[in-house]
């Protein structure tokens, strides 16, 4: 009978052997992942790089339809929304006026002082193709990768605030670890108090602030910006606002809209200049050309003694 070829008793020992071999191989795979993590994660990035762009034909229409359905639900309260937007627009006009005046004033003052500003940050824009697919990870996949010059660790923003950092780059895709992921830690500054803190994700929509120097100095509604400590992110990117939760913890309400991520900017970070040669900063080379020191002829003299030379 036909079923003998699929599930028969004489095949049982063979099957058991195959099962044992497979189990051992899988255990080995898990151990290799644990021991040589970067290599296996590169393999993972390569697999995702092959799979996701190839499934784009199926994913894009479904995502589009689902987003349209979400938008369609909001038609129900179109009128209220319109009113709300009008009010907000009125407020924004006032703010825009204020911002323009301040910008002009700032430009005048900077010009007077001849301040050298940081070079403008440039960015690459990518489209969100996929998310992590797991309830335990918060990350999204962008359609830009090593091909476009993306590097690990770069900051990623939506139009307004920081969304996360690049963690894992394939040739055509790159993964953004969102600020809400349990593995995400970034150094931030809380303005206007100037407090340093660490923004730590914990799989909830509002990451919490850890290692705040002086929590009394922090008020709800304070702005949180990246501090640039450790050369991780460019300093001064907007992250969100401080909120107090009922359990007395400081958390951040993110400015970026993590529910509707569509287009993301990957900020090209320039590695900060490190000062590891203090002598070159202090003054011109000593001794000046043409000057002969008295102790220059004395052999074996202490070079530190030249500080006392007139």
């Amino acid at each position, binding site marked *: *009978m*036909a*079923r003998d*070829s*699929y*599930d*028969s*008793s004489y095949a049982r020992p063979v*099957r058991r052997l*195959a*099962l044992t071999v*497979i*189990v051992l191989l*899988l*255990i080995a*795979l*898990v151990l290799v*992942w*644990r021991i040589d993590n970067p290599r*296996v994660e590169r*393999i*993972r990035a390569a*697999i*995702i790089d092959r*799979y*996701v762009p190839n*499934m784009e034909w*199926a*994913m894009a229409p*479904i*995502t589009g339809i*689902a*987003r349209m359905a979400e938008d369609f639900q909001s038609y129900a309260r179109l009128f209220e929304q319109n009113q709300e937007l009008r009010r907000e627009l009125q407020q924004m006009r006032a703010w825009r006026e204020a911002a323009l005046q301040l910008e002009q004033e700032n430009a005048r003052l900077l010009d007077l002082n001849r301040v050298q500003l940081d070079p403008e940050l440039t960015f690459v824009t990518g489209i*969100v*193709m*996929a*998310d*992590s*697919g*797991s*309830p*335990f*990870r*918060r*990350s*999204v*996949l962008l359609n830009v990768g090593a091909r476009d010059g993306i590097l690990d660790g770069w900051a990623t923003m939506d139009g307004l605030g920081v969304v996360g950092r690049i963690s894992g780059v394939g040739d055509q895709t790159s993964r953004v670890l*969102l600020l*809400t992921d*349990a*593995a995400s830690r970034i150094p931030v500054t809380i303005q206007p108090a100037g407090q340093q803190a660490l923004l730590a994700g*914990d*799989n*909830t*929509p509002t990451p919490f602030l850890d290692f705040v120097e002086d929590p009394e100095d922090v008020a709800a509604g304070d702005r949180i910006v990246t501090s640039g400590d450790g050369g991780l992110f460019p300093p001064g990117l907007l992250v969100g606002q401080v909120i107090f939760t009922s359990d007395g913890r400081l958390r951040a309400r993110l400015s970026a809209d*993590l*529910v*509707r*991520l569509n287009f993301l900017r990957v900020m090209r970070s320039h590695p900060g200049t490190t000062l590891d040669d203090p002598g070159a900063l202090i003054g011109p080379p000593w001794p000046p050309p043409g000057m002969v020191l008295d102790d220059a002829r004395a052999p074996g003299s202490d070079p530190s003694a030249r500080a006392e030379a007139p």
Partner: protein
Amino acid sequence: MSSILSPRHVWTYRLLFGVLAVALITLKLLPLNLSGGGVPAPDLLTALAFAWIVRQPATVPLGLMIGVFLLADFLLQRPPGLWTLLVILACESLRRRRLTMTEFPFLVEWGAVSVAIVGIVVANRIILWLLLVDLDPLGLSLTYGLVTIAVYPLAVAVSKFVFGLRKLGPAELESL
């Protein structure tokens, strides 16, 4: 009777399982539920594999399961191989016990599958803890298991009424 076990029937269902698995994985990858928080989405792929292995084991061969679950491990940011390993072990144990399950009502089968799912979630956690990997929140892991258990009858209903995958009777199982 022989049509249930004919090569044509079996290969059709194998193909169907592969297609369903790829569809489920791709569906999970869609960037729709980015907000986080709330109840995690169930692991439909595991529920489907269990439902099929209890009904007609020949339709979910070992090689297919390894391919599908390893792909899921790599794409869904899980430690590669671990979930696959645990699912395969759980499937083997369910496959051995399915003779007893056919004679009892559905609740018994559901109970056995629930034990298997909770076992996988707990074993997954213990192994990750032994390997000193950062653990996910405990509540979230357990909720994930519970949601998957809750969705199991749905997976069974879809397999039975949409794909026509019926349970093999004792008479057909005796020779296996």
